[in-house]
């Protein structure tokens, strides 16, 4: 190959020595062209700089060489030192610093130096001394556009030969030829880091971002978008970093009727366009998205990328739907479900009371029967008050009097004990002796207790406990009375806990949550502070602190 290159360069008759020199230069040219090729392709920085060092080694017959890039802050690379041979493991630049004086010196003398010659320059004396100790024989600055990127150094030539002036010039030429490319490495590195940074930012947002090129082929997605694509297209291998789906494959007509056309039309606008309510089915779940379509031009203005952002509004829509339903009820002024729920509670008490009365009659216990009938009358009275007051979400009729919480609890429990729902449950009470009378609406507190006990029984049933247990406690603590109801049911999810007394909230399959909303009102009417301790599948403890 050398002979072929020779013929291109010269057909002059050369001496043996001239031929060797010539061929050496040809080898250098060949090396340079290959280096340029390597630098120009997407460079693996370490490989490319090592390649340069190997070239120095072979071309100048040295066993060791290094490159030190001094502008490391701009480089954003983990390494700024590259070495081969003896200098591979030993960072010979550890003790040097390229200060302004040295930089000025090298910018002024952009050439290769023997260390022995470098020593004669005051500005570089220190550097030369350190390099001499490290057995470095030659140094060349790497300069591009009047910026010192770093320096390269070579060991002594093999067999202790001296590097020639011609070789020094060749070294300088090769170095000067590649510094533009080394400078590009900075750019490549920064671009790569920028690219990673942008990708990290894209992945940090919840919205799903998809970038299509002007051929409508998917070019880039963030993690959120990848989740949606793999959900909608389960056969896609999510490990593939890049896949070339067309837009009609991402939004097929069979699943997204009319949407491809909408997106295409929206992409022709110079402004971002928001499209409402794209519905997609994913794992038997219906997802609803807002779609934002924007088009981007590249810096040259000759390419349009289309950015499609999907914003998941499924939960928002469902909440709005619930709210709408609530408002419908409010508008119509009909709280049928709420009322029927509360009536059911009262009816439970009445039914239990009737059963007790029947039992007592059979046993000829007239006094007991009378007692029961009195209690029944009270409950009917409460019901009447309830229906007369039109229990809705905006007001409860409140009539407070001095009553003892202990009596209210005992009354409610005595009736519930015979109710089918509570028959197989162990209901224990623990009531302090010194509970004072308090200003309470007896009916409302009964309702509150009834609702919580009802839900406790349901939770225990759902948990399928062998022994269902409810513990009702009343204690006096500082200036309040604490009523707690603990059960060993299914427990409440932490997300649910906070919403328990709000809006139309229920976790029951056929529930509606109005009962607990009423409780919310009762709690508010009595300035009760509520704490709920609950662990999913670990039971629940409602704690109501009622101020004296």
């Amino acid at each position, binding site marked *: 190959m050398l002979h072929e290159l020779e013929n291109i360069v010269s057909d002059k008759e050369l001496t043996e020595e001239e031929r060797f020199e010539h061929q050496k230069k040809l*080898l250098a040219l060949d090396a340079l062209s290959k280096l340029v090729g390597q630098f120009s392709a997407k460079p693996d920085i370490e490989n490319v700089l090592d390649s340069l*060092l190997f070239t120095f080694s*072979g071309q100048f017959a040295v066993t060791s060489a290094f490159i030190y890039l001094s502008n490391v802050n701009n480089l954003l690379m983990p390494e700024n030192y590259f070495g081969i*041979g003896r200098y591979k493991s030993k960072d010979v630049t550890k003790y040097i610093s390229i200060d302004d004086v040295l930089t000025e010196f090298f910018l002024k003398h952009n050439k290769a130096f023997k260390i022995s010659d470098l020593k004669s320059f005051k500005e570089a004396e220190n550097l030369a001394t350190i390099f001499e100790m490290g057995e470095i024989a030659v140094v060349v600055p790497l300069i591009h556009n009047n910026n010192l990127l770093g320096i390269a150094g070579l060991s002594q030539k*093999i067999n202790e030969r001296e590097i020639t002036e011609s070789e020094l010039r060749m070294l300088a030429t090769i170095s000067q030829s590649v510094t533009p490319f080394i400078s590009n490495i900075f750019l490549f590195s920064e671009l790569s880091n920028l690219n990673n940074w942008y990708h990290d930012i894209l992945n940090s947002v919840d919205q799903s971002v998809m970038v299509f090129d002007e051929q409508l082929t998917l070019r880039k997605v963030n993690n959120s978008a990848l989740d949606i694509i793999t959900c909608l297209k389960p056969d896609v291998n999510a490990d593939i970093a890049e896949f070339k789906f067309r837009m009609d494959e991402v939004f097929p007509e069979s699943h997204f009727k009319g949407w491809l056309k909408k997106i295409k039309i929206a992409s022709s606008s110079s402004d971002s366009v928001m499209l409402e309510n794209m519905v997609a089915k994913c794992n038997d779940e219906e997802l609803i998205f807002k779609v934002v379509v924007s088009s981007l031009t590249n810096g040259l203005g000759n390419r349009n990328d289309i950015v499609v952002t999907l914003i998941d509004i499924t939960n928002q829509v469902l909440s709005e739907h619930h709210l709408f339903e609530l408002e419908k009820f409010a508008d119509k002024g009909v709280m049928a479900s709420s009322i029927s729920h509360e009536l059911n509670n009262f009816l439970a008490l009445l039914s239990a009371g009737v059963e007790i009365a029947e039992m007592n009659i059979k046993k000829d216990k007239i006094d007991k029967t009378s007692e029961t009938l009195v209690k029944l009358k009270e409950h009917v009275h409460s019901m009447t008050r309830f229906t007369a007051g039109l229990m809705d979400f905006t007001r409860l009729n409140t009539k407070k009097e001095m009553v003892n919480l202990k009596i209210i609890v005992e009354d409610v429990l005595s009736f519930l004990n015979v109710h089918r729902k509570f028959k197989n449950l162990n209901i224990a009470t623990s009531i302090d002796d010194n509970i004072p009378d308090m200003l309470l609406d007896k009916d409302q507190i009964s309702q509150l207790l009834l609702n919580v006990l009802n839900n406790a029984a349901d939770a225990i049933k759902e948990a399928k406990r062998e022994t269902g247990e409810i513990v009702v406690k009343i204690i006096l603590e500082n200036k309040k009375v604490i009523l707690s109801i603990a059960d060993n049911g299914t427990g409440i999810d932490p997300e649910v806990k906070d919403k328990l007394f709000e809006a139309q909230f229920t976790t029951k399959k056929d529930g509606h949550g109005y009962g607990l909303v009423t409780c919310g009102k009762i709690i508010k009417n009595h300035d009760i502070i509520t704490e709920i301790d609950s662990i999913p599948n670990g039971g629940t403890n409602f704690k109501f602190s009622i101020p004296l």
Partner: protein
Amino acid sequence: MAKEELIKKTINDETAVIATGKILDNNNAFEMVSAITELQEKNFKYIVIDMNNLEFISSAGVGSILGTVENSREDGGDIILCNLSQNVLHIFEVLDLVDFLTIKTSNEDVSKVCGVEIS
């Protein structure tokens, strides 16, 4: 230019052979260094580089050998180049490395250096 594959072969505990492809240049110099370094780390004393197929070696290709030879020599071993064509040998002559590197023209001569039969 496609990378040329290197083929490695173990002769015994001390000697291994790396056979080059047609070209050893910037594109595969790194692989050559990795191959040599790997064998040195496994304590192979003699690393024979069979250049039977080699048509051209660039400065970088030469440097990949030059940058690793001292490691072997410090451990009492060597890197031996063998079966060089005239063209390839000429390149080593141009770069004035013939006296420094151990270059053998035949497997027989290599065997004399490392004491084993190289086929």
